[in-house]
């Protein structure tokens, strides 16, 4: 039975690592959700005279500052997700990561009005020395990127509809609508390859229609 001793250590290591990553994923989800809430609150607050930047830009900056915590958490976990381990524990890492991408892409949209690229997301996940590729904490999968962004459209729906009650809200809503339509159109091609994307695309479609209906109601 001595050969089982070695197995025992390996299995215990695996279980511990799995637990650590599940806990970290929950913490990252919480930080990301709080950041999204913060982004809504600041971006929709009325601009004050004398402010150098628009509410959106200042929301985005504060949001991104908040999200640095997430990067630090990943850096601390890097031994648990290095190399092949990332793939072994992908199921534990993904949920938090997708929430993080959702928050990050919302912050990016508020400042630039564009879709954050996967490269930009990957760039926030470098090791301490900030060097490229070789220093990735872990590789960003196409799936996590697309599924994270897909969740963004629901937030954008709430953002667009809330902004309709403000001055200049219609323009804001129309540009948000254009963005959501683009996401919907661009991502449709990925549905066969990415699991669960098709369900999220249906949610995106619903969000898009809700913005369209809200804009319509303002027009007539």
């Amino acid at each position, binding site marked *: 039975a001595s050969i089982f001793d070695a197995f025992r250590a390996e299995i215990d290591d695996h279980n511990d690592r799995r637990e650590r990553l599940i806990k970290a994923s929950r913490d990252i989800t919480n930080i990301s959700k709080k950041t999204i809430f913060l982004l809504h609150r600041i971006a929709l607050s009325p601009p004050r005279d004398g402010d150098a930047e628009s509410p959106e830009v200042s929301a985005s900056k504060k949001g991104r500052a908040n999200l640095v915590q997430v990067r630090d958490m990943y850096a601390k976990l890097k031994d648990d997700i290095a190399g092949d381990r990332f793939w072994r524990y992908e199921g534990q890492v993904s949920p938090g990561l997708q929430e993080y991408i959702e928050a990050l892409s919302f912050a990016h949209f508020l400042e630039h009005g564009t879709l954050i690229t996967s490269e930009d997301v990957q760039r926030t996940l470098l090791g301490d020395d900030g060097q490229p590729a070789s220093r990735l904490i872990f590789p960003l999968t196409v799936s996590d990127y697309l599924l994270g962004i897909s969740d963004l459209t629901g937030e954008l729906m709430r953002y667009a509809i809330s902004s309709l009650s403000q001055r200049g809200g219609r323009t804001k809503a129309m540009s948000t609508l254009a963005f959501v339509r683009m996401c919907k159109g661009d991502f449709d091609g990925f549905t066969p390859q990415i699991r669960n994307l098709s369900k999220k695309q249906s949610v995106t479609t619903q969000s898009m*229609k809700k913005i*369209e209906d809200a804009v319509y109601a303002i027009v007539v």
Partner: protein
Amino acid sequence: ADLELLNERLESESQLREKIKEQVLELDKKSRVMLGHLNKVHSIPSSEVPNLLASVRPVLESTHSIHQTVSQLVPAHQFWRWKDMWTNGLRSFVFVAAFVQFLTDGTLLSLADTTAQLGIKDEWKDRFALPVEDYLHGLITLVNELSRLAVNSVTLGNFEEPLKISAFVKDIFSGFTMLNLKNDLLRRRFDSLKYDVKKIEEIVYDVSL
């Protein structure tokens, strides 16, 4: 020996399934491309619609050769055995063809014309055909889409479109009312059409004020 024979048959069926699947993936790609194009109809002025349609038509035509390939893969008499593999794609092609026709001249594409536009030949009928049910599914998708178009055309300042859509949709709706549908998905989708019809009528109401 009997079991070996059976295994050969199972093997060849599974190979055929793979071959059909390849074609179906191609059809799905074309479907997504066309739906992607047509999706733009909600955000462009009506003057640009003809160009949009011009970009869709050749893709629709390019499905003909794939349909032909599938019709050659399917063994004689086995249409109903394999059709589930491409049903979704086929229904979306019906939608595309009927939507293009509506946007072109405001008329309803008949089953026969849809079959022709998809390049489906009558002589393939035991291997590849367009069943009534799938045609009707495509029309329901069209009504769903038109209720969205009614909303967005008003937003773009086109107040005529909802009237055109309303008349068109009412005809389809009253046609469906007469059908003796089984209690299946098609029936449930038809039941939900009422909401689209109502929504379109409310839009016509809003613009008539």
